[in-house]
């Protein structure tokens, strides 16, 4: 596998991402902005489903989903850029898989909330019985994704390029 990663690291895009003037840090900044919007939106929605801020109509919190989409639109391309710069460093690190799994599962749980809890709240019906458990798990997974993301820098074992 390292041969494949090494060949990716010779792609002009990969070299540019690593060696271009501050390109890597610009990608890091966009990734941070995107993750802040994505996870910030996720935290607020999960907290509300869990009952915090109960005076506010839950259905209206749907308005924060577009914030999360904007966050994803910033975080995913910038994340791909970071990945293409150092593919071996990420793909050989199990913590990267944990980060990815946390974020994907959290996003799927949010989708279930969007299609289950929010329509029920809009109709004035009680939330589906496991909505709060899903929100609690999603909140934990968003934070787990952040934790794994921060630990990437301290847990990689393979670095093919400097």
């Amino acid at each position, binding site marked *: 596998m390292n041969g494949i990663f090494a060949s990716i690291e010779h792609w002009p895009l990969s070299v540019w991402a690593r060696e271009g003037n501050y390109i890597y840090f610009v990608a890091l900044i966009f990734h941070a902005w995107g993750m802040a919007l994505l996870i910030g939106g996720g935290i607020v929605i999960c*907290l509300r489903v869990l009952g915090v801020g109960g005076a506010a109509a839950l259905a209206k919190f749907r308005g924060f989903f577009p914030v999360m989409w904007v966050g994803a639109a910033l975080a995913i391309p910038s994340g791909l850029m970071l990945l293409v710069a150092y593919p071996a460093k990420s793909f050989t690190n199990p913590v990267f898989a944990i980060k990815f799994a946390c974020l994907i599962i959290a996003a799927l749980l949010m989708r279930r909330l969007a299609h289950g809890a929010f329509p029920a709240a809009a109709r004035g019906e009680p939330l589906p019985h496991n909505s709060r458990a899903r929100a609690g798990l999603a909140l934990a997974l968003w934070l787990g994704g952040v934790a794994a993301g921060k630990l990437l820098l301290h847990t990689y074992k393979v670095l093919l390029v400097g």
Partner: protein
Amino acid sequence: MDPDPFLDVAAIAQLGRNLGINGMMTMRWGWPIAEVFHFFGLCLLFGTVGLFDLRMLGVARGVSLRALHRLIPFGLGGLAMSVTTGLLFVMTTPDQYLHNPALLTKFALMLVAGFNMVLFYLIAARGTWLTGPDDLPPVPARIFGAISLACWVGVMTCGRVITVFRPPAFYWCPWC
């Protein structure tokens, strides 16, 4: 020799060692765990204060600002978590942080954000709580919201580039 007459980098590093902070942070998982909590704090802060600011600017109309404000204590808890862990970083390697242009800009933006928050509560909060769930708050509140959001985005940005602007290659001491 350190030209700073106020912040003695060597003395702060010694204080960090005397308090056991240096020993804790240089353990295998000390620094990474502190980083994780630093970012948990930032997530809570941006997820509550940042989204409150966005709501003041018209995003997610229908959500009552007064009710959304009940999430702010989570943001303040996040801020406390970030400030505490941030102090651990500074006390461990003050030479990398104290005169770092990115960190000083980050501190300045945090001060502006804090001052802006105080002014919001003194000037614009009462009008904001009277705003209907589907309405925009009064113009002063929107201005305070925009300043707050810009400051916190700036804080996040400066935090990301601290490693680029490390002393001695970059050295800022506006008070020297």
